């Protein structure tokens, strides 16, 4: 009885297999083009990897349905880097060895992206990070691209804004990592060039949640404004403690604080925070509206700026693939990426400089008013 069951099972398996291969036959004519996506899907930074995966999956599904690339289907291959540079390098080696993969998206942090970039540079596989903003990242080789304005662009933008509002003495508080360093140096240079003065620079260790001592120290200098270079959870803690310490100094921040989570955590203490951003979920632009609606209906959340950047990064990659056609390989994809110009994404029009591969985007000004991010005209 068991034997007959086994035989029947095997027969059923063969039949099912045959059916699947029959069904797959017409699809065989369809070429499969793969994109690797490395991002922190578990661990402390998993919330970012998660929104990247959401956005990228959405973008690829829409692309495959659109018929922009007849004769080929694009698939995504995700790997979890845990925000660890060693993992990032391992993934990069794996992606390089996979002949289906023509391009890679990710990683999240500059540190991990730059570690993996060494592998991609040697093997010649185009890498497009949605968030790595360290100035040296694109300098690694001609294979690195990014879809985020760097601090070299954002720092001066906010500096000009603050100086224009009569804030001449500004204190800076930033996280102690590669990115935080670039926040401080770019902002400081711009403020000093614009005739202002940076009264103090305070770095804090990642993981620190008590900013009372730093705020007290900064308040002693009586600056006209404070500039924050950090992420939403740190920012929320800082803003709450700022209110509790009764420090009423106007505060500006990097675009990394543009996240609904900031307001959810900090509540009324986030009111009045001014920041720059490339993406506004409440923007009336039709592309943005379509993306926000689709994302919200599917994932039950409003996309953050990081989600939007991943969406655009994936679409830029896909547009470059479509441009080359189904015969795309790593080299032709790279060349097509370098020619990206005026790409109409949800984070504004994006152009890659063909030489430096630095993106140019439009930045917008935002202020938190009554628990809402509002565009400043």
């Amino acid at each position, binding site marked *: 009885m068991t034997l007959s069951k086994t035989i029947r099972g095997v027969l059923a398996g063969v039949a099912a297999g045959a059916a699947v291969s029959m069904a797959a036959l017409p699809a065989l004519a369809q070429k499969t083009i793969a994109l690797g996506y490395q991002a922190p899907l578990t661990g402390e930074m998993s919330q970012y990897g998660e929104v990247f995966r959401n956005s990228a999956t959405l973008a690829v599904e829409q692309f495959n349905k659109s018929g922009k690339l007849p004769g080929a289907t694009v698939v995504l291959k995700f790997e979890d880097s845990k925000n660890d540079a060693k993992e990032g390098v391992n993934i990069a080696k794996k992606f390089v060895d996979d002949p289906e993969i023509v391009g890679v998206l990710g990683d999240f942090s500059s540190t991990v992206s730059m570690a993996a970039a060494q592998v991609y540079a040697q093997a010649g596989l185009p890498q497009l990070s949605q968030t790595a903003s360290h100035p040296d990242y694109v300098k690694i080789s001609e294979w690195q691209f990014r879809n985020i304005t760097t601090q070299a662009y954002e720092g001066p933008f906010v500096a000009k804004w603050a100086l224009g509002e009569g804030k001449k003495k500004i204190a800076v508080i930033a996280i102690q990592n590669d990115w935080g360093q670039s926040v401080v140096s770019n902002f400081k240079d711009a403020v000093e060039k614009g005739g202002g003065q940076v009264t103090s620079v305070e770095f804090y260790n990642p993981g620190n949640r008590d900013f009372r*001592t730093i705020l007290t*120290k900064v308040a002693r200098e009586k600056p006209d404004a404070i500039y924050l270079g950090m992420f939403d959870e740190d920012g929320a803690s800082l803003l709450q403690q700022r209110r509790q310490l009764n420090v009423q100094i106007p505060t500006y921040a990097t675009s990394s604080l543009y996240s609904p989570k900031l307001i959810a955590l900090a*509540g009324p203490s986030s009111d009045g925070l001014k920041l720059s951003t490339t993406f506004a979920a409440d923007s009336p632009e039709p592309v943005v509206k379509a993306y926000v609606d689709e994302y919200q209906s599917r994932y039950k959340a409003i996309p953050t700026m990081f989600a939007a950047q991943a969406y655009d990064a994936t679409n830029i990659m896909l547009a470059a693939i479509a441009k080359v056609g189904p015969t795309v390989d790593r080299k032709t994809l790279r060349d097509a990426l370098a020619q990206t110009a005026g790409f109409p994404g949800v984070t504004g029009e994006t152009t890659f400089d063909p030489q430096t591969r630095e993106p140019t985007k439009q930045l917008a000004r935002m202020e938190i008013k009554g628990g809402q991010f509002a565009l400043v005209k």
Partner: protein
Amino acid sequence: MFDAFFVQQLVNGFSVGLVYALIAIGFTLIFGVLNVVNFAHGEVYMVGAYAGVVLITALAPPLVAVVLFVMAVGAVAGFGLERLAFKPFRRFQDEASLKSKAMREATLLSSLAVSIIVREVVEKVFGGAMRPVPFESQLTDPVQIGELSFSTGQFVIFGAAVAMFAGLQFLLYRTRIGLSIRAVANNPLGAKYVGIDTDRTIIATFVVGSVMGAVAGILVALYYGSVFPTMGFAPGVKAFVAMVMGGLSSIPGAVICAIFLGLAEAVATEFLAQGWSEMIAYGFLLLTLIFFPTGLFGGARDRV
């Protein structure tokens, strides 16, 4: 000259120190009795905070009710922790096993295992990101006294620390169970021979220590306005440092050292970048261990 900013830094440091002290009290109590570190104490703290926040989100009861509920959760957590990670290693009651260091130190790893499992489960259920405490219940309202800024949470935490410390001293020196806790801490085998139920005493110690840990968790969560799965780790390490500096089994010593650490970190931030203030804490630990190997308040003193 009265420097308001400097005094403000002392206030900041004192409140950070009190947070360490709240955790260190329970930590030291359990160490005193078992002579082994309970690595899951930070997770009891975290579980207390999450339990409180879940209750607040669901029912928004007054603070007293929240604290009572969290105390109950802490008691259950302490009992369960002891049952899971400590009791199995006491099943052999012969003298060799009771004196065995290996048996005792195995609980170091079993409590670490429990702490990892609990943290991961909480992360799976509630997510790894920070969750806000509902704003009406937060203890973050500013209280301005002259040039100094306090917050409601600082007063509550101060009150809780005093109450816990005094309550524990009363429990240890004025009650029957306190007497047996001190006896077991002093000499577990001797206590057993004179007829003290050591098993029950150890369970009682875990329940008392974990109740304090859980209450500390919810109060600190209300003071910072948020909870996250790894919230017990960093202050837990500092509480551990305070315990070692204070002489491992001296509760007053641990409290004093915890407050000292908080003050030292705040004052260090005045002169150095915040990142360096960590070094100050560990520097003090190193100095203590080199010059006072039994801790600042340890040695000849009564255990616990």
